[in-house]
């Protein structure tokens, strides 16, 4: 653009026009960054600060350094919750994203009838609040008048208990899958639509079939979109809160107050009044999410580089 040229030409003093544009640009980003700093940066710093203190009944607040973090490292409740969300991540996310990818490819191939309506209907659950989705599935899972149990009984399978301690995590995975397959599908589908037509022509000339085209052209071409959905899912899984907190009402025995780290932090802060320890848990959880998301991206970048080298 012309601005860069002007800057290169007169390094010492940008022209008035350029300066005016810079000023305009800063004014455009300013409102966002004011709220950004106030609502993201300040709370984050404050949370880090709080996590270094401890409040005692006698003596008030005192600086304890990393004691809260040390306590978290030795806290089986924290590890238990982290283990559950890790299981969730390893089991539910591949299923959800695999389904989303399958739907996106199926819709993109144009080989199914009514694919336009199908796309909208699969996406619809995303518009349903997690609270209502959880309430709904809570009723559907119900052993008495839940239709799933009714059907199972009618077929002669007995009454399945979706809300037992053994099956509650799986039941939760089903709820989250139901809610978010469509959202991820739309992201992948939009990316598929943006693949340039030339790539397909080349593949057609080489005689590639549907599956071959999907595997060798479509999936690699939308990898950035897939990575985006992976990162969003990592963040989402670690933050699980709505589902455990609401299912707790219908399955109190199956869900402990530390079922997920987020739910644990909430209970620590608002039930136990342990704000400082809760801050430490929330901060640690944020750190875990950042690290895992970063590793996902790093793996992707490395892979991309390797492949670029391979083709060069």
């Amino acid at each position, binding site marked *: 653009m012309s601005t860069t040229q002007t800057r290169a030409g007169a390094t010492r003093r940008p022209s008035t026009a350029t300066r005016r544009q810079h000023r305009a640009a800063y004014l455009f980003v300013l409102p966002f960054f004011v709220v950004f700093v106030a609502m993201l940066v300040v709370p984050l710093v404050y949370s880090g600060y709080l996590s270094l203190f401890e409040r005692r009944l006698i003596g008030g607040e005192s600086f304890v350094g990393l004691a809260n973090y040390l306590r978290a490292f030795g806290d089986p409740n924290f590890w238990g919750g982290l283990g559950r969300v890790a299981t969730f991540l390893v089991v539910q996310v591949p299923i959800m994203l695999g389904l989303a990818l399958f739907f996106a490819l199926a819709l993109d191939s144009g080989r199914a009838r009514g694919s336009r309506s199908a796309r909208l209907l699969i996406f619809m659950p995303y518009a349903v609040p997690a609270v209502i989705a959880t309430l709904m599935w809570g009723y559907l899972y119900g052993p008495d008048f839940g239709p799933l149990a009714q059907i199972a009984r009618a077929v002669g399978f007995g009454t399945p208990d979706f809300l037992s301690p053994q099956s509650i995590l799986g039941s939760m995975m089903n709820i989250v899958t139901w809610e978010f397959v469509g959202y991820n599908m*739309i992201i992948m589908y939009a990316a598929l639509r943006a693949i340039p037509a030339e790539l397909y022509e080349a593949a057609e000339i080489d005689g590639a079939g549907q599956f071959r085209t999907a595997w060798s052209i479509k999936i690699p071409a939308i990898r950035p979109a897939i990575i985006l959905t992976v990162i969003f899912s990592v963040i989402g899984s670690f933050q699980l809160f709505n589902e455990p907190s609401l299912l707790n009402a219908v399955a109190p025995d199956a869900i402990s107050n530390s079922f997920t780290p987020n739910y644990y932090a909430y209970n620590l802060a608002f039930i136990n009044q342990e704000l400082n320890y809760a801050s430490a848990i929330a901060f640690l959880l944020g750190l875990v999410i950042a690290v895992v998301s970063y590793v996902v991206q790093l793996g992707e970048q490395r892979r991309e580089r390797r492949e670029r080298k391979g083709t060069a």
Partner: protein
Amino acid sequence: MTSLETRAIVTGRTPRGRRRPRPYTPQRRRSWLLTIVLWACVAYFLLPLWWLTVASTKDTSALFSSFGLWFAPEFSFFDNLADLFTTRGGLFSRWMLNTVLYAGVSAIGATLLAAMAGYAFAKYRFPGSSALFSITLGAIMIPLTALALPTYLLFSRAGLTDTPWSIIIPSLVSPFGVYLMRVYAADAIPDSLIEAARMDGAGEFRIFWQVGLRLMGPGLVTVFLFSLVGTWNNYFLPLIMLNSSELYPITVGLAQLQAAASAGGGSQAVFSTVITGSFVSILPLVIAFLFLQRYWQSGLGTGGVKG
């Protein structure tokens, strides 16, 4: 026919000829197997919503005595509706209004902030822009969890908890929205148009308002809808911020009704109210998505997903 139409809608404009719409290839035949598998899966996604629709027409005793996926002999939808809007002095309508207010105001604000910032990142080269943009991208990864608690404490010091502001202000930040708007603006607004407007003597702000915003239409709808859903569906933030039930959004209100229903031995009638309330409360968003689909889908299709 439909596939051609869809393609036109989703691919939308083809900026700078980089993305050509795919030519329709006649050898692309329909597959019955794929159709059946796909629609069987659609059934899974619809089943809970079908159940909710059916259940909202039953009174509590029919809820327990009839088959869940089909209607009961008596049709109690309107009785349920009447109950819903009179329970606790009509608190439900208050919750709906609150939700519309919180979600509407936050989504408009978030979209505007994201559009301005995204436009600036796409169309100006200014010192620090790449650093600021990287920070924004990094913020997409910050979990709400780490923020909700300290935000609550800060707000409570400022006396802002238990006010609508405690929901609206935190919902104004949408780093992903900025990212989407940047990608979208880069594609949809030609530099030459901005230059031409400058030649005509238009100020930068006027160019943004009259040229930029208009061309960013579908992108704006996308960001608006996703922020709207974000705030509409939020449960955690209002749960910790609000104490007075007149200020609750629908999510917290219904969750509280449900908790009362499952806990209370005598208050069983509330089950049908909770179910009807859930049904009524999901209608606005579902309708919004149906009506605005061509805009948000083209918004995502054009810009949303480049790496």
